[in-house]
Protein backbone atom coordinates (compact mmCIF):
# COMPACT_ATOMS: atom_id res chain seq x y z
CA UNK A 1 0.00 0.00 0.00
CA UNK A 2 1.42 3.37 -0.96
CA UNK A 3 1.78 5.92 1.77
CA UNK A 4 -0.88 8.27 0.40
CA UNK A 5 -2.37 8.93 3.81
CA UNK A 6 0.58 11.18 4.59
CA UNK A 7 -0.37 13.55 1.79
CA UNK A 8 -2.84 15.65 3.71
CA UNK A 9 -4.65 18.72 2.43
CA UNK A 10 -3.52 20.81 5.40
CA UNK A 11 -0.28 21.38 7.32
CA UNK A 12 0.54 19.10 10.26
CA UNK A 13 -0.26 21.96 12.67
CA UNK A 14 -3.74 22.37 11.16
CA UNK A 15 -4.24 18.63 11.33
CA UNK A 16 -3.20 18.55 14.99
CA UNK A 17 -5.55 21.39 15.95
CA UNK A 18 -8.37 19.83 13.92
CA UNK A 19 -7.91 16.42 15.50
CA UNK A 20 -7.21 17.75 19.02
CA UNK A 21 -8.89 21.13 19.31
CA UNK A 22 -7.82 23.17 22.36
CA UNK A 23 -10.06 25.08 24.77
CA UNK A 24 -13.41 23.94 23.41
CA UNK A 25 -16.36 24.42 25.70
CA UNK A 26 -17.64 21.03 26.86
CA UNK A 27 -21.27 20.34 27.57
CA UNK A 28 -21.93 20.89 31.27
CA UNK A 29 -18.76 22.85 31.93
CA UNK A 30 -19.49 25.84 34.20
CA UNK A 31 -17.54 28.55 32.44
CA UNK A 32 -18.44 31.97 33.76
CA UNK A 33 -17.92 34.15 30.72
CA UNK A 34 -17.23 37.84 31.15
CA UNK A 35 -17.80 38.42 27.46
CA UNK A 36 -19.31 36.45 24.60
CA UNK A 37 -18.84 36.97 20.86
CA UNK A 38 -20.91 35.35 18.11
CA UNK A 39 -20.04 35.61 14.42
CA UNK A 40 -20.85 33.83 11.17
CA UNK A 41 -23.91 31.80 10.31
CA UNK A 42 -24.82 28.20 9.68
CA UNK A 43 -26.01 29.14 6.21
CA UNK A 44 -22.53 30.41 5.35
CA UNK A 45 -21.06 27.12 6.51
CA UNK A 46 -19.18 28.52 9.47
CA UNK A 47 -20.31 29.92 12.77
CA UNK A 48 -18.36 30.66 15.90
CA UNK A 49 -18.90 31.53 19.52
CA UNK A 50 -16.11 32.79 21.80
CA UNK A 51 -16.42 33.09 25.57
CA UNK A 52 -13.75 34.95 27.50
CA UNK A 53 -12.84 35.42 31.12
CA UNK A 54 -11.00 38.68 31.77
CA UNK A 55 -8.65 39.42 34.69
CA UNK A 56 -6.58 42.59 35.01
CA UNK A 57 -7.48 43.48 31.43
CA UNK A 58 -5.98 40.23 30.19
CA UNK A 59 -7.68 37.23 28.57
CA UNK A 60 -7.46 34.89 31.55
CA UNK A 61 -9.27 32.01 29.88
CA UNK A 62 -11.27 31.28 26.79
CA UNK A 63 -13.72 28.69 25.49
CA UNK A 64 -15.14 28.36 22.01
CA UNK A 65 -17.63 26.51 19.82
CA UNK A 66 -17.31 26.31 16.06
CA UNK A 67 -19.45 24.92 13.29
CA UNK A 68 -17.26 24.66 10.24
CA UNK A 69 -14.63 22.90 8.20
CA UNK A 70 -11.23 21.71 9.34
CA UNK A 71 -9.58 25.09 8.76
CA UNK A 72 -12.31 26.89 10.70
CA UNK A 73 -11.92 24.49 13.63
CA UNK A 74 -8.13 24.60 13.55
CA UNK A 75 -8.11 28.41 13.23
CA UNK A 76 -10.35 28.83 16.26
CA UNK A 77 -8.29 26.39 18.24
CA UNK A 78 -5.04 28.16 17.32
CA UNK A 79 -6.56 31.56 18.04
CA UNK A 80 -7.64 30.34 21.49
CA UNK A 81 -4.07 29.33 22.34
CA UNK A 82 -2.69 32.60 21.07
CA UNK A 83 -5.27 34.77 22.82
CA UNK A 84 -5.04 33.38 26.35
CA UNK A 85 -2.66 35.58 28.35
CA UNK A 86 -2.81 38.51 25.96
CA UNK A 87 -3.87 41.95 27.14
CA UNK A 88 -7.21 43.05 25.76
CA UNK A 89 -5.39 45.46 23.49
CA UNK A 90 -3.11 42.75 22.13
CA UNK A 91 -6.01 40.38 21.71
CA UNK A 92 -7.95 43.04 19.86
CA UNK A 93 -5.10 43.34 17.39
CA UNK A 94 -4.87 39.66 16.50
CA UNK A 95 -5.28 39.30 12.73
CA UNK A 96 -6.27 36.38 10.51
CA UNK A 97 -2.79 36.50 9.01
CA UNK A 98 -1.20 35.92 12.44
CA UNK A 99 -3.44 32.91 13.03
CA UNK A 100 -2.85 31.53 9.54
CA UNK A 101 0.91 31.95 9.92
CA UNK A 102 0.87 30.11 13.22
CA UNK A 103 -0.96 27.28 11.50
CA UNK A 104 1.80 27.05 8.91
CA UNK A 105 -0.49 28.44 6.23
CA UNK A 106 -3.83 27.45 4.76
CA UNK A 107 -4.74 26.62 1.15
CA UNK A 108 -5.60 29.89 -0.60
CA UNK A 109 -9.33 29.20 -0.93
CA UNK A 110 -9.42 28.50 2.81
CA UNK A 111 -8.29 31.93 4.02
CA UNK A 112 -11.85 33.00 4.57
CA UNK A 113 -12.22 30.20 7.12
CA UNK A 114 -9.61 31.81 9.37
CA UNK A 115 -11.13 35.27 9.49
CA UNK A 116 -13.93 34.52 11.92
CA UNK A 117 -11.72 33.73 14.91
CA UNK A 118 -10.28 37.19 15.44
CA UNK A 119 -13.65 38.81 14.72
CA UNK A 120 -15.36 36.63 17.30
CA UNK A 121 -12.65 37.44 19.81
CA UNK A 122 -13.12 41.17 19.19
CA UNK A 123 -16.88 40.75 19.54
CA UNK A 124 -16.31 39.04 22.90
CA UNK A 125 -14.06 41.87 24.08
CA UNK A 126 -16.62 44.43 22.91
CA UNK A 127 -19.26 42.52 24.83
CA UNK A 128 -17.08 42.43 27.96
CA UNK A 129 -16.42 46.17 27.88
CA UNK A 130 -20.04 46.92 27.27
CA UNK A 131 -21.13 44.75 30.19
CA UNK A 132 -18.60 46.57 32.35
CA UNK A 133 -20.06 49.86 31.20
CA UNK A 134 -16.58 50.86 30.03
CA UNK A 135 -15.48 52.88 27.05
CA UNK A 136 -14.11 50.80 24.23
CA UNK A 137 -10.67 52.29 23.66
CA UNK A 138 -9.69 49.79 20.96
CA UNK A 139 -12.46 50.10 18.49
CA UNK A 140 -11.49 53.42 16.98
CA UNK A 141 -7.81 52.57 16.82
CA UNK A 142 -8.30 49.33 15.09
CA UNK A 143 -8.25 49.20 11.37
CA UNK A 144 -11.17 47.34 9.90
CA UNK A 145 -10.40 44.49 7.58
CA UNK A 146 -12.13 45.01 4.27
CA UNK A 147 -10.59 42.21 2.22
CA UNK A 148 -10.65 39.23 4.53
CA UNK A 149 -8.76 36.93 2.22
CA UNK A 150 -5.74 39.20 1.85
CA UNK A 151 -6.18 41.08 5.14
CA UNK A 152 -6.44 44.50 3.55
CA UNK A 153 -7.69 47.15 5.97
CA UNK A 154 -9.55 50.40 5.47
CA UNK A 155 -6.61 52.30 6.97
CA UNK A 156 -4.28 50.73 4.40
CA UNK A 157 -6.58 51.70 1.55
CA UNK A 158 -6.89 55.19 2.98
CA UNK A 159 -3.10 55.63 3.17
CA UNK A 160 -2.53 54.34 -0.36
CA UNK A 161 -5.20 56.62 -1.80
CA UNK A 162 -4.10 59.61 0.27
CA UNK A 163 -0.44 59.27 -0.71
CA UNK A 164 -1.33 58.87 -4.36
CA UNK A 165 0.28 55.38 -4.60
CA UNK A 166 -3.03 53.95 -5.70
CA UNK A 167 -4.52 56.24 -8.30
CA UNK A 168 -6.80 53.59 -9.73
CA UNK A 169 -8.53 50.49 -8.38
CA UNK A 170 -6.19 48.39 -10.53
CA UNK A 171 -3.16 49.96 -8.87
CA UNK A 172 -4.72 49.38 -5.46
CA UNK A 173 -5.25 45.74 -6.34
CA UNK A 174 -1.69 45.40 -7.62
CA UNK A 175 -0.30 46.67 -4.31
CA UNK A 176 -2.69 44.99 -1.89
CA UNK A 177 -4.04 42.03 -3.92
CA UNK A 178 -7.49 42.85 -2.55
CA UNK A 179 -10.35 40.90 -4.13
CA UNK A 180 -8.10 38.29 -5.75
CA UNK A 181 -9.31 35.31 -3.75
CA UNK A 182 -13.04 35.23 -3.03
CA UNK A 183 -13.78 38.65 -4.55
CA UNK A 184 -16.53 39.43 -2.05
CA UNK A 185 -14.92 42.73 -0.99
CA UNK A 186 -14.71 44.29 -4.45
CA UNK A 187 -17.81 46.43 -4.15
CA UNK A 188 -16.91 47.67 -0.66
CA UNK A 189 -13.34 48.46 -1.71
CA UNK A 190 -14.62 50.34 -4.73
CA UNK A 191 -16.95 52.42 -2.53
CA UNK A 192 -14.19 53.15 0.00
CA UNK A 193 -11.78 54.06 -2.79
CA UNK A 194 -14.24 56.60 -4.17
CA UNK A 195 -14.93 57.95 -0.69
CA UNK A 196 -11.23 58.47 0.14
CA UNK A 197 -10.58 60.03 -3.26
CA UNK A 198 -13.36 62.44 -2.49
CA UNK A 199 -12.17 63.15 1.06
CA UNK A 200 -8.55 63.74 0.06
CA UNK A 201 -9.42 65.27 -3.27
CA UNK A 202 -6.89 63.22 -5.24
Amino acid at each position, binding site marked *: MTNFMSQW*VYTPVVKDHFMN*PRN*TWKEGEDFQADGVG*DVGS*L*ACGDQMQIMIQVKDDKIADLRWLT*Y*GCASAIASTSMMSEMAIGLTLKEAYNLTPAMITDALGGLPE*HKFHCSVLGDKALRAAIDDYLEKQGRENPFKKHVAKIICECKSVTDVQIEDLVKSGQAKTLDQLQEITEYGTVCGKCKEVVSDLFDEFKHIYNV
Partner: protein
Amino acid sequence: MEQHIIYLDNNATTPMHEDVIEAVHEAHILYGNASSMHGLGRASAEAIEQSRQSIASLIDCSAKEVVFTSGASEANNTVFSIIREQIDLGSKRDRIITTTIEHPSIIETVKYLKSRGYKIDECPVDSTGRIDLATFKRLLGEDVALVSVMTGNNEIGTIQPIEEISALSHAVGALVHTDATQAIGKIEVSMRKMGVDYLSLSGHKFYGPKGIGVLAVKTKAPFTPLVHGGHQEGGRRAGTYNTACIVGIGVAAKLAKADLQAEHDRLWSLREMLRKGIEERIPNVVVNGNQQHCLPGTLDVSFPHAEGESILLYLDMEGIMVSTGSACASGSLEPSYVLLASGVDIELAHGSIRFSFGRYNTADDVAYVLEKLPPIIKRLREMSTR
Protein backbone atom coordinates in the same frame (compact mmCIF):
# COMPACT_ATOMS: atom_id res chain seq x y z
CA MET B 1 1.58 0.90 7.38
CA GLU B 2 -1.37 -1.13 6.20
CA GLN B 3 -4.53 0.83 6.82
CA HIS B 4 -8.06 -0.41 6.74
CA ILE B 5 -9.59 1.23 3.66
CA ILE B 6 -13.32 1.45 3.13
CA TYR B 7 -13.90 3.00 -0.25
CA LEU B 8 -17.39 4.53 -0.36
CA ASP B 9 -16.84 7.00 -3.16
CA ASN B 10 -17.77 4.80 -6.11
CA ASN B 11 -19.87 7.55 -7.72
CA ALA B 12 -16.65 9.56 -8.06
CA THR B 13 -14.84 6.68 -9.69
CA THR B 14 -14.43 2.93 -9.33
CA PRO B 15 -11.37 0.72 -9.25
CA MET B 16 -10.83 -1.37 -12.37
CA HIS B 17 -12.13 -4.92 -12.17
CA GLU B 18 -9.31 -7.47 -12.22
CA ASP B 19 -10.58 -8.87 -15.53
CA VAL B 20 -10.44 -5.36 -16.96
CA ILE B 21 -6.89 -4.83 -15.69
CA GLU B 22 -5.83 -8.10 -17.27
CA ALA B 23 -7.55 -7.31 -20.57
CA VAL B 24 -6.07 -3.80 -20.73
CA HIS B 25 -2.66 -5.19 -19.89
CA GLU B 26 -2.89 -7.82 -22.60
CA ALA B 27 -4.26 -5.33 -25.11
CA HIS B 28 -1.04 -3.35 -24.93
CA ILE B 29 0.50 -5.80 -27.38
CA LEU B 30 -2.13 -4.58 -29.87
CA TYR B 31 0.04 -1.61 -30.76
CA GLY B 32 -0.97 -1.48 -34.40
CA ASN B 33 -2.96 1.61 -35.33
CA ALA B 34 -6.50 0.33 -35.68
CA SER B 35 -6.85 2.47 -38.80
CA SER B 36 -3.93 0.71 -40.55
CA MET B 37 -4.68 -1.87 -43.23
CA HIS B 38 -1.95 -4.31 -42.23
CA GLY B 39 -2.29 -7.29 -39.94
CA LEU B 40 -1.38 -5.50 -36.69
CA GLY B 41 -3.80 -2.73 -37.48
CA ARG B 42 -6.55 -5.21 -38.26
CA ALA B 43 -5.92 -7.06 -34.98
CA SER B 44 -6.47 -3.81 -33.06
CA ALA B 45 -9.54 -2.96 -35.13
CA GLU B 46 -11.04 -6.35 -34.40
CA ALA B 47 -10.55 -5.96 -30.65
CA ILE B 48 -12.22 -2.55 -30.85
CA GLU B 49 -15.21 -3.93 -32.76
CA GLN B 50 -15.67 -6.66 -30.15
CA SER B 51 -15.76 -4.02 -27.46
CA ARG B 52 -18.25 -1.99 -29.47
CA GLN B 53 -20.51 -5.06 -29.57
CA SER B 54 -20.29 -5.45 -25.80
CA ILE B 55 -21.25 -1.79 -25.27
CA ALA B 56 -24.14 -2.09 -27.73
CA SER B 57 -25.37 -5.19 -25.95
CA LEU B 58 -25.15 -3.48 -22.54
CA ILE B 59 -27.15 -0.40 -23.53
CA ASP B 60 -29.41 -2.12 -26.05
CA CYS B 61 -28.48 -0.29 -29.24
CA SER B 62 -26.78 -1.28 -32.47
CA ALA B 63 -22.97 -1.47 -32.58
CA LYS B 64 -22.72 1.15 -35.30
CA GLU B 65 -24.44 3.62 -32.99
CA VAL B 66 -21.56 3.44 -30.49
CA VAL B 67 -18.96 6.23 -30.71
CA PHE B 68 -15.96 5.96 -28.41
CA THR B 69 -14.92 9.20 -26.70
CA SER B 70 -12.51 10.21 -23.96
CA GLY B 71 -15.32 10.02 -21.42
CA ALA B 72 -18.81 11.24 -20.61
CA SER B 73 -17.77 14.91 -20.43
CA GLU B 74 -16.68 14.77 -24.05
CA ALA B 75 -19.82 12.85 -24.99
CA ASN B 76 -22.02 15.46 -23.30
CA ASN B 77 -20.14 18.32 -24.92
CA THR B 78 -20.47 16.64 -28.30
CA VAL B 79 -24.26 16.47 -28.02
CA PHE B 80 -24.55 20.17 -27.17
CA SER B 81 -22.14 21.01 -29.99
CA ILE B 82 -24.30 19.06 -32.47
CA ILE B 83 -27.39 21.00 -31.44
CA ARG B 84 -25.50 24.28 -31.46
CA GLU B 85 -24.53 23.61 -35.08
CA GLN B 86 -28.13 22.79 -35.99
CA ILE B 87 -29.17 26.13 -34.51
CA ASP B 88 -26.28 27.98 -36.21
CA LEU B 89 -27.33 26.48 -39.53
CA GLY B 90 -30.71 28.11 -39.11
CA SER B 91 -32.90 25.39 -37.62
CA LYS B 92 -36.21 26.83 -36.46
CA ARG B 93 -35.84 24.66 -33.41
CA ASP B 94 -33.52 26.83 -31.40
CA ARG B 95 -34.19 26.03 -27.75
CA ILE B 96 -32.72 23.41 -25.41
CA ILE B 97 -34.29 22.07 -22.21
CA THR B 98 -32.21 20.52 -19.47
CA THR B 99 -32.43 20.38 -15.67
CA THR B 100 -30.88 22.17 -12.71
CA ILE B 101 -29.11 19.07 -11.39
CA GLU B 102 -27.13 17.83 -14.40
CA HIS B 103 -23.44 16.97 -14.21
CA PRO B 104 -21.05 19.98 -14.43
CA SER B 105 -20.08 18.97 -17.98
CA ILE B 106 -23.64 19.94 -18.92
CA ILE B 107 -24.27 22.73 -16.38
CA GLU B 108 -21.09 24.54 -17.47
CA THR B 109 -21.75 23.95 -21.17
CA VAL B 110 -25.21 25.43 -20.68
CA LYS B 111 -23.73 28.49 -18.94
CA TYR B 112 -21.28 28.93 -21.78
CA LEU B 113 -23.91 28.58 -24.52
CA LYS B 114 -26.24 30.96 -22.69
CA SER B 115 -23.44 33.53 -22.56
CA ARG B 116 -23.27 33.21 -26.34
CA GLY B 117 -26.97 33.93 -26.67
CA TYR B 118 -28.43 30.44 -27.02
CA LYS B 119 -31.85 29.78 -25.50
CA ILE B 120 -31.74 27.16 -22.78
CA ASP B 121 -34.29 26.37 -20.08
CA GLU B 122 -33.26 24.53 -16.95
CA CYS B 123 -36.27 22.63 -15.68
CA PRO B 124 -36.52 22.57 -11.87
CA VAL B 125 -36.69 19.38 -9.82
CA ASP B 126 -38.85 18.55 -6.81
CA SER B 127 -37.60 18.13 -3.24
CA THR B 128 -36.43 14.60 -4.04
CA GLY B 129 -34.51 15.65 -7.13
CA ARG B 130 -37.10 14.32 -9.63
CA ILE B 131 -37.89 16.48 -12.61
CA ASP B 132 -40.97 18.61 -12.18
CA LEU B 133 -43.03 17.12 -15.04
CA ALA B 134 -45.72 19.79 -14.94
CA THR B 135 -43.14 22.51 -15.53
CA PHE B 136 -41.35 20.32 -18.05
CA LYS B 137 -44.53 19.92 -20.08
CA ARG B 138 -45.05 23.68 -20.05
CA LEU B 139 -41.48 24.24 -21.27
CA LEU B 140 -41.89 21.83 -24.18
CA GLY B 141 -42.81 23.28 -27.55
CA GLU B 142 -42.29 23.04 -31.29
CA ASP B 143 -39.20 25.24 -30.99
CA VAL B 144 -37.32 22.76 -28.78
CA ALA B 145 -34.31 21.16 -30.48
CA LEU B 146 -33.02 19.03 -27.61
CA VAL B 147 -34.05 17.76 -24.21
CA SER B 148 -31.14 16.58 -22.06
CA VAL B 149 -31.88 14.90 -18.73
CA MET B 150 -29.54 12.66 -16.76
CA THR B 151 -30.64 9.09 -16.01
CA GLY B 152 -29.51 9.03 -12.37
CA ASN B 153 -27.95 11.76 -10.30
CA ASN B 154 -24.35 11.45 -9.10
CA GLU B 155 -24.91 13.13 -5.73
CA ILE B 156 -28.32 12.09 -4.48
CA GLY B 157 -28.91 9.13 -6.79
CA THR B 158 -32.36 10.22 -7.93
CA ILE B 159 -33.49 8.40 -11.09
CA GLN B 160 -35.44 10.38 -13.69
CA PRO B 161 -38.44 9.08 -15.68
CA ILE B 162 -36.51 9.10 -18.96
CA GLU B 163 -39.07 7.00 -20.87
CA GLU B 164 -41.79 9.48 -20.09
CA ILE B 165 -39.54 12.47 -20.84
CA SER B 166 -38.60 10.91 -24.20
CA ALA B 167 -42.19 10.28 -25.19
CA LEU B 168 -43.25 13.82 -24.29
CA SER B 169 -40.24 15.32 -26.08
CA HIS B 170 -40.62 13.23 -29.21
CA ALA B 171 -44.29 14.22 -29.37
CA VAL B 172 -43.16 17.79 -30.09
CA GLY B 173 -40.35 16.64 -32.36
CA ALA B 174 -37.42 17.33 -30.03
CA LEU B 175 -34.34 15.14 -29.80
CA VAL B 176 -33.55 13.51 -26.45
CA HIS B 177 -30.23 12.99 -24.71
CA THR B 178 -29.55 11.26 -21.41
CA ASP B 179 -26.32 11.21 -19.45
CA ALA B 180 -26.47 7.64 -18.14
CA THR B 181 -22.99 7.73 -16.59
CA GLN B 182 -24.08 6.98 -13.03
CA ALA B 183 -26.74 4.44 -13.97
CA ILE B 184 -24.60 1.98 -15.94
CA GLY B 185 -24.08 -1.30 -14.13
CA LYS B 186 -26.53 -0.29 -11.39
CA ILE B 187 -29.91 -0.27 -13.13
CA GLU B 188 -31.06 -1.42 -16.54
CA VAL B 189 -30.10 1.15 -19.18
CA SER B 190 -31.75 0.41 -22.52
CA MET B 191 -31.47 3.03 -25.21
CA ARG B 192 -34.36 1.42 -27.01
CA LYS B 193 -36.72 1.29 -24.02
CA MET B 194 -35.79 4.78 -22.87
CA GLY B 195 -36.31 5.96 -26.42
CA VAL B 196 -33.41 8.42 -26.36
CA ASP B 197 -31.49 9.66 -29.40
CA TYR B 198 -28.20 10.24 -27.59
CA LEU B 199 -26.73 8.55 -24.52
CA SER B 200 -23.46 9.26 -22.70
CA LEU B 201 -21.50 6.93 -20.46
CA SER B 202 -18.04 6.67 -18.94
CA GLY B 203 -15.84 3.60 -18.40
CA HIS B 204 -14.42 4.43 -15.00
CA LYS B 205 -17.80 4.54 -13.29
CA PHE B 206 -18.34 0.83 -13.83
CA TYR B 207 -14.92 -0.72 -13.17
CA GLY B 208 -13.49 0.16 -16.58
CA PRO B 209 -10.49 2.37 -17.34
CA LYS B 210 -10.43 6.15 -16.96
CA GLY B 211 -10.25 8.31 -20.06
CA ILE B 212 -12.66 6.24 -22.12
CA GLY B 213 -16.37 6.74 -22.66
CA VAL B 214 -19.12 6.42 -25.18
CA LEU B 215 -21.62 8.59 -26.95
CA ALA B 216 -24.31 6.35 -28.40
CA VAL B 217 -26.15 8.05 -31.26
CA LYS B 218 -29.27 6.81 -33.00
CA THR B 219 -28.61 6.38 -36.72
CA LYS B 220 -31.17 8.97 -37.71
CA ALA B 221 -30.08 11.60 -35.19
CA PRO B 222 -27.99 14.51 -36.47
CA PHE B 223 -24.26 14.36 -35.86
CA THR B 224 -21.32 16.73 -36.10
CA PRO B 225 -17.93 15.78 -34.72
CA LEU B 226 -16.56 17.75 -31.78
CA VAL B 227 -13.03 16.58 -32.56
CA HIS B 228 -12.19 16.97 -36.25
CA GLY B 229 -9.20 15.45 -37.96
CA GLY B 230 -9.74 11.87 -39.01
CA HIS B 231 -12.07 9.24 -40.30
CA GLN B 232 -12.15 7.22 -37.08
CA GLU B 233 -15.56 6.23 -35.73
CA GLY B 234 -17.11 6.75 -39.15
CA GLY B 235 -15.86 10.34 -39.15
CA ARG B 236 -17.70 11.03 -35.91
CA ARG B 237 -14.70 11.31 -33.60
CA ALA B 238 -11.14 11.86 -34.77
CA GLY B 239 -8.05 10.66 -32.93
CA THR B 240 -5.99 7.48 -32.96
CA TYR B 241 -7.89 4.68 -31.28
CA ASN B 242 -7.15 4.17 -27.59
CA THR B 243 -7.17 0.42 -28.18
CA ALA B 244 -6.27 -0.79 -24.68
CA CYS B 245 -8.89 1.33 -22.93
CA ILE B 246 -11.52 0.48 -25.52
CA VAL B 247 -10.83 -3.19 -24.87
CA GLY B 248 -11.08 -2.46 -21.13
CA ILE B 249 -14.44 -0.70 -21.32
CA GLY B 250 -15.74 -3.61 -23.41
CA VAL B 251 -14.82 -6.11 -20.72
CA ALA B 252 -16.36 -3.85 -18.07
CA ALA B 253 -19.56 -3.69 -20.13
CA LYS B 254 -19.76 -7.48 -20.33
CA LEU B 255 -19.31 -7.80 -16.57
CA ALA B 256 -21.88 -5.07 -15.92
CA LYS B 257 -24.43 -6.82 -18.06
CA ALA B 258 -23.82 -10.26 -16.61
CA ASP B 259 -24.11 -9.12 -12.96
CA LEU B 260 -26.70 -6.37 -13.32
CA GLN B 261 -29.61 -7.70 -11.28
CA ALA B 262 -27.50 -9.31 -8.58
CA GLU B 263 -25.31 -6.22 -8.26
CA HIS B 264 -28.36 -3.95 -8.11
CA ASP B 265 -29.87 -5.96 -5.26
CA ARG B 266 -26.59 -6.24 -3.39
CA LEU B 267 -25.86 -2.50 -3.61
CA TRP B 268 -29.37 -1.62 -2.47
CA SER B 269 -29.19 -3.94 0.51
CA LEU B 270 -25.84 -2.44 1.62
CA ARG B 271 -27.21 1.06 1.13
CA GLU B 272 -30.32 0.30 3.13
CA MET B 273 -28.30 -1.36 5.86
CA LEU B 274 -26.27 1.83 6.21
CA ARG B 275 -29.30 4.12 6.01
CA LYS B 276 -31.17 2.22 8.71
CA GLY B 277 -28.04 1.96 10.85
CA ILE B 278 -27.41 5.69 10.65
CA GLU B 279 -31.03 6.51 11.45
CA GLU B 280 -30.94 4.15 14.44
CA ARG B 281 -27.63 5.30 15.86
CA ILE B 282 -27.49 9.01 15.08
CA PRO B 283 -30.22 11.44 16.13
CA ASN B 284 -31.36 14.24 13.84
CA VAL B 285 -30.27 13.12 10.38
CA VAL B 286 -31.87 13.88 7.02
CA VAL B 287 -31.66 11.48 4.08
CA ASN B 288 -31.56 13.40 0.80
CA GLY B 289 -32.92 12.38 -2.59
CA ASN B 290 -35.74 10.13 -3.72
CA GLN B 291 -36.03 6.95 -1.70
CA GLN B 292 -38.16 5.17 -4.27
CA HIS B 293 -36.42 6.13 -7.51
CA CYS B 294 -32.81 5.91 -6.39
CA LEU B 295 -29.59 4.46 -7.74
CA PRO B 296 -29.04 1.40 -5.55
CA GLY B 297 -25.58 2.28 -4.21
CA THR B 298 -26.08 5.96 -3.41
CA LEU B 299 -26.89 7.32 0.04
CA ASP B 300 -26.75 11.06 0.70
CA VAL B 301 -27.27 12.11 4.29
CA SER B 302 -27.20 15.49 6.03
CA PHE B 303 -26.03 15.82 9.61
CA PRO B 304 -27.21 19.15 11.03
CA HIS B 305 -24.60 20.87 13.26
CA ALA B 306 -21.74 18.85 11.78
CA GLU B 307 -20.00 20.32 8.76
CA GLY B 308 -19.37 18.11 5.73
CA GLU B 309 -15.67 18.67 5.20
CA SER B 310 -14.94 18.03 8.86
CA ILE B 311 -16.96 14.80 8.78
CA LEU B 312 -15.18 13.75 5.58
CA LEU B 313 -11.72 14.36 7.04
CA TYR B 314 -12.49 12.63 10.35
CA LEU B 315 -13.83 9.63 8.38
CA ASP B 316 -10.71 9.76 6.21
CA MET B 317 -8.60 9.38 9.36
CA GLU B 318 -10.44 6.12 9.96
CA GLY B 319 -9.81 5.01 6.38
CA ILE B 320 -13.36 5.68 5.22
CA MET B 321 -13.53 7.55 1.90
CA VAL B 322 -16.68 9.53 1.12
CA SER B 323 -17.60 12.82 -0.50
CA THR B 324 -19.51 15.89 0.68
CA GLY B 325 -21.75 18.59 -0.76
CA SER B 326 -20.28 21.13 1.65
CA ALA B 327 -18.95 24.40 0.27
CA CYS B 328 -15.70 24.01 2.13
CA ALA B 329 -14.70 20.91 0.22
CA SER B 330 -15.56 22.37 -3.15
CA GLY B 331 -13.25 25.36 -3.10
CA SER B 332 -16.18 27.72 -3.49
CA LEU B 333 -18.35 29.39 -0.88
CA GLU B 334 -21.48 27.68 -2.17
CA PRO B 335 -22.50 24.18 -1.20
CA SER B 336 -23.67 21.58 -3.75
CA TYR B 337 -25.93 23.06 -6.43
CA VAL B 338 -27.65 19.69 -6.77
CA LEU B 339 -28.77 19.75 -3.14
CA LEU B 340 -29.81 23.40 -3.29
CA ALA B 341 -31.74 22.82 -6.54
CA SER B 342 -33.52 19.92 -4.83
CA GLY B 343 -34.70 22.31 -2.15
CA VAL B 344 -32.33 21.03 0.54
CA ASP B 345 -31.86 23.70 3.17
CA ILE B 346 -28.48 25.42 2.79
CA GLU B 347 -27.44 24.45 6.34
CA LEU B 348 -28.22 20.82 5.59
CA ALA B 349 -26.28 20.99 2.33
CA HIS B 350 -23.18 22.13 4.25
CA GLY B 351 -23.47 19.03 6.40
CA SER B 352 -24.13 16.48 3.68
CA ILE B 353 -22.17 13.30 3.11
CA ARG B 354 -22.48 11.00 0.12
CA PHE B 355 -21.77 7.32 0.65
CA SER B 356 -21.58 5.52 -2.71
CA PHE B 357 -21.25 1.77 -2.74
CA GLY B 358 -19.64 -0.42 -5.36
CA ARG B 359 -18.81 -3.95 -6.32
CA TYR B 360 -16.12 -4.40 -3.68
CA ASN B 361 -18.04 -3.20 -0.64
CA THR B 362 -19.34 -5.68 1.92
CA ALA B 363 -21.62 -5.77 4.94
CA ASP B 364 -18.45 -5.56 7.08
CA ASP B 365 -17.76 -2.15 5.54
CA VAL B 366 -21.19 -0.97 6.63
CA ALA B 367 -20.60 -2.29 10.14
CA TYR B 368 -17.24 -0.47 10.29
CA VAL B 369 -18.82 2.82 9.18
CA LEU B 370 -21.61 2.38 11.71
CA GLU B 371 -18.98 1.93 14.41
CA LYS B 372 -16.88 4.97 13.42
CA LEU B 373 -19.44 7.50 12.20
CA PRO B 374 -21.64 8.08 15.30
CA PRO B 375 -18.80 9.23 17.59
CA ILE B 376 -17.50 11.53 14.84
CA ILE B 377 -20.87 13.23 14.44
CA LYS B 378 -21.27 13.42 18.22
CA ARG B 379 -17.84 15.00 18.62
CA LEU B 380 -18.39 17.60 15.88
CA ARG B 381 -21.81 18.47 17.25
CA GLU B 382 -20.37 18.95 20.73
CA MET B 383 -17.78 21.31 19.30
CA SER B 384 -20.35 23.15 17.20
CA THR B 385 -22.34 26.28 17.93
CA ARG B 386 -25.85 25.34 18.96
